[in-house]
């Protein structure tokens, strides 16, 4: 069990070990939905919600159902269906309460199901043997970190669209990968501050 308090872990998951910028998980929705801040924020909040809830539930199901029954080798399939159910819940809620966002996110909303950052977070907390409290902190922190990263890139891209005259070949995903790379470099400066595993 990692000896680290929940507050520090939350901070670490957001900044020093940002799941997107240090582990490069969850890149495909990150590249496609980061065109503007508003939709980035929407998707980010959805990811925070799904990641936090599934981290807790996956933790409980893993330690209180799968391990006692010696079924821990089923963790992938169980984790995935739990994540899928939560995404389904998010989808009906967004369609009901945020219709405009629902159309902007389009297919990427259901695709949170296979956002590898979410399964990644659930698997890390098993591998790193976090406690329940640590898992909540880690799940929420990873989600918030992912959201911050996509909002940062979203706002940079929104600015770029208005001001920069990009060469044709650099438009869209190309420049986004550049920005992400430079941001990841910046985040590397945090590494080593806190060891979380």
């Amino acid at each position: 069990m990692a000896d680290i308090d929940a507050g520090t872990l939350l901070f670490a998951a957001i900044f020093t070990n940002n799941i997107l910028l240090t582990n490069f998980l969850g890149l495909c929705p990150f590249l496609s939905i980061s065109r503007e801040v508003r939709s980035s924020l929407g998707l980010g909040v959805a990811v925070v919600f799904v990641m936090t809830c599934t981290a807790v539930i996956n933790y409980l199901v893993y330690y209180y159902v799968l391990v006692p029954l010696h079924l821990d080798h089923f963790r992938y399939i169980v984790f995935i269906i739990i994540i899928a159910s939560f995404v389904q819940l998010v989808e009906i809620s967004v369609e009901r309460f945020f219709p405009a966002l629902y159309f902007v996110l389009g297919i990427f909303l259901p695709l949170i199901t296979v956002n590898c950052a979410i399964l990644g977070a659930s698997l890390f907390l098993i591998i790193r043997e976090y406690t329940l409290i640590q898992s909540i902190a880690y799940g929420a922190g990873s989600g918030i970190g992912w959201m911050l990263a996509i909002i940062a890139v979203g706002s940079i891209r929104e600015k770029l669209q208005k001001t920069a005259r990009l060469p044709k070949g650099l438009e869209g995903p190309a420049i986004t990968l550049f920005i992400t790379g430079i941001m990841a470099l910046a985040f590397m400066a945090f590494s080593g501050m806190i060891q979380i595993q």
Partner: protein
Amino acid sequence: MLQLILSLIAISGIGALLALFLEIADSYIADYGESHILINNEKDLVVEGGSPLLSSLMENEIFIPSACGGKGTCSLCKLRVLAGGGPVLPTETPYLSKEELENDVRLSCQVKVRNDLKIEIPEELFKIKEFRVSIEKVIDLTDDIKSIQLKILTNEEGISFKPGQYVQLKVPKYEMTRESEYRAYSVASSSEASRDLELLITKVADGAVSTYVHDYMKEGEELTINGPYGEFYLQESDKDILLIATGSGLAPLLSILHQIEREKIGRKTTLFFGARTVKDLLYYDEVKDFETRLPDFTFMPTLSRPTEEDRWQGEKGRVTNLIEKYIPENAPLEVYICGSIVMVESCEDLLKKKGISEENIFYDKFE
């Protein structure tokens, strides 16, 4: 063995729990309950929430023009939604001008009824009614255009429409569709015979309604239509009339020709009709016959790809060539164009270049 059963039970148990959880969430969140729609500040409609405004209105026998079947592509179903419509969706913005956005105009097929709404519907739309019809006769006019003749069953006096207007034909769900679908078709028959309508239907690849009409529909079958719709009809003036059509775009113009004959309108009338080959010249003899029946009518068909066997002596090329060749600059004309979007737009551009002003050009574009 025990382990196997255990794992089956555990995994299905988790699945079942999640299903239960989602089912409960769905019945709470996706239940929109009843909503009130206040129309023109006088009529109050109570509908089940959750469906698009267009179909909610249609269920209550208020018919809003729509040609695409609620897919958000024809932009005909615009209405003013004064309150409760929520933010304008990205699926609507391409079809709404700045002025329309400021005036709360929305595409009623895209606005979902989620809460109480306040909307405005132009009075004339209340005249639109639904009719049960029986398919009396189906005739192949060309390889891909059928004429269907309908008889209105529901009421004696039939439908009252202006020649040039269209109706929506609704076909039941069949193996190609998931629900009953409707599309707009102009009435080709004379407005005098108001219980007997004729529609011309071009087969569209994968088109839900046209495929049904061409491959599934049988004579004697009963279907539903609603209408009339549209602003495409003969205006009152004494300008010369130029009619332009391709394919089944001839339909509304046929109805207009009947009107000119019946009302003895003496205005000089010309019809440019474009087709590919002689085989595609639908109703050639019938239209030609109008030349003898109308006081001043010229029929000018043009073929874009006449074959050797056609031995075609008439005009060649597209309808735009005819405009190029026969329409003088600033001609005192009123032009009625009906056919594919591309054809209508290129004719309109050309006519404008010839100095014919926008207010004298009327058109009906087909998807």
